[in-house]
């Protein structure tokens, strides 16, 4: 995809969307093409809304600046969690994805999230992994290390520099899939880790919100969503949680 072309007058507007495609399997580059759950989902939504669009790969810093500015990008989809702080600066679509965090570790002593208190924990900066840990133990937790990308956190775990990594379940599973011979255990802790919900990121006051929300709802309800989810994660999604969330 390419964001360069200005939408020319006359024909219907072509909306420009961005994603930071470094987060397999949600969005990533495969042989030079942007693929992933978010990519297929966006396609379904835009089809439903009957909107023309193009999707390009944008580095995270630019992704944020461009969506916020609303000129180079009209919107973005990049596993962005909805929260109160962010709503001050952006509009979000209704939630389209429930993410649960997992703990991945080698240590037997770690059974629940509460066992992480005095441990060294790795998360990716600006992900839900970071948020759940900060919600649990407070922002100033000494042992919390925010990595620029999740791969670095996994490598640090390998290295023994940290005791555990907290990340989205899909990412953890993808990592285990890519590194089958490593002796890690992955734990859910639904009591201490609240679920997080992703939304499509839009500039504040975007006209798109009104067009996208019904389309997202329709895709969730008409079974298209479950189809995409199964393609990428091999299991059934809990659509009801999403529809109830609002």
């Amino acid at each position: 995809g390419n964001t360069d072309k200005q939408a020319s007058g006359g024909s219907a507007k072509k909306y420009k969307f961005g994603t930071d495609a470094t987060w397999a399997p949600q969005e990533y580059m495969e042989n030079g093409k942007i693929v992933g759950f978010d990519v297929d989902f966006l396609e379904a939504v835009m089809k439903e809304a009957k909107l023309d669009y193009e999707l390009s790969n944008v580095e995270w810093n630019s992704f944020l600046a461009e969506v916020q500015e609303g000129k180079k990008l009209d919107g973005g989809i990049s596993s962005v969690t909805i929260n109160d702080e962010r709503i001050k600066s952006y509009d979000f679509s209704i939630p389209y994805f429930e993410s649960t965090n997992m703990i991945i570790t080698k240590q037997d002593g770690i059974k629940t999230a509460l066992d992480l208190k005095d441990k060294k924990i790795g998360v990716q900066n600006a992900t839900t992994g970071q948020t759940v840990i900060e919600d649990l133990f407070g922002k100033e937790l000494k042992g919390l290390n925010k990595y620029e990308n999740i791969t670095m956190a996994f490598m640090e775990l390998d290295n023994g520099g940290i005791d555990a990594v907290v990340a989205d379940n899909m990412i953890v599973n993808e990592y285990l899939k890519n590194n089958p011979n490593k002796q890690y255990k992955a734990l859910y802790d639904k009591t201490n880790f609240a679920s997080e919900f992703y939304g499509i990121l839009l500039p504040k006051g975007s006209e798109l919100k009104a067009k996208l929300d019904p389309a997202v709802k329709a895709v969730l309800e008409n079974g298209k969503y479950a189809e995409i989810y199964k393609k990428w994660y091999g299991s059934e999604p809990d659509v009801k949680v999403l529809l109830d969330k609002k």
Partner: protein
Amino acid sequence: MDIRWDIIETYAPFFLQGTLLTIGICLASIFFGTILGLGIGLGRMSKHKIIRTPFTVYVDIIRGTPLLVLIMIVHFGISTPVFGISNGIFSAILSLSLNSAAYCAEIFRAGVQSIDRGQMEAARSLGLSHYKAMRFVILPQAIKRMIPPFVNEFIVLIKDSSLASIVAAKELMYWAKAAQGQYLRVWESYLTIAIIYLILTLTLSKVLNRLERKYRTE
């Protein structure tokens, strides 16, 4: 360390593409950066403080600003508002040129000031204007001495060009990050591009060293 060679293989064509773009961005930035640097260097050498000051401030500010931030400011604050272009490659070349110009200006100034004062005096005493004395007498001699620091600067520039990936210019680092995102593995892509950067910088210094030696024997 276990290396998954298939990742490198799959990504080889993209790394090739990225290498070509990296080279293109660097050549353009070297070109514009050098020209702009010459102008700024001349400005910094002015006898008049009023002329000198803005150039000095430019050099200080650019040298003091992390390139990452400069690229973002250029991309969002200059490329589109001023030039109406929102292409990442354009922003990358523009910011690398602006950044490099500050360093080139200093190299240029040091080179000119290293030429014996007697050369300028002899030229002026023959009736040549300051401009002509610079052009025919000082610069041809100074350029030789500037080659080593310029090589240094260009090597830094090649490495700095990897930051262009933040404005989505599809150069080497862009593809390295893409491969990392796909496989959640670091070494395959980063070591590959490290070697490519090394080849690029070594080639550059070899070429320019030869140039320098040629100049010297002339």
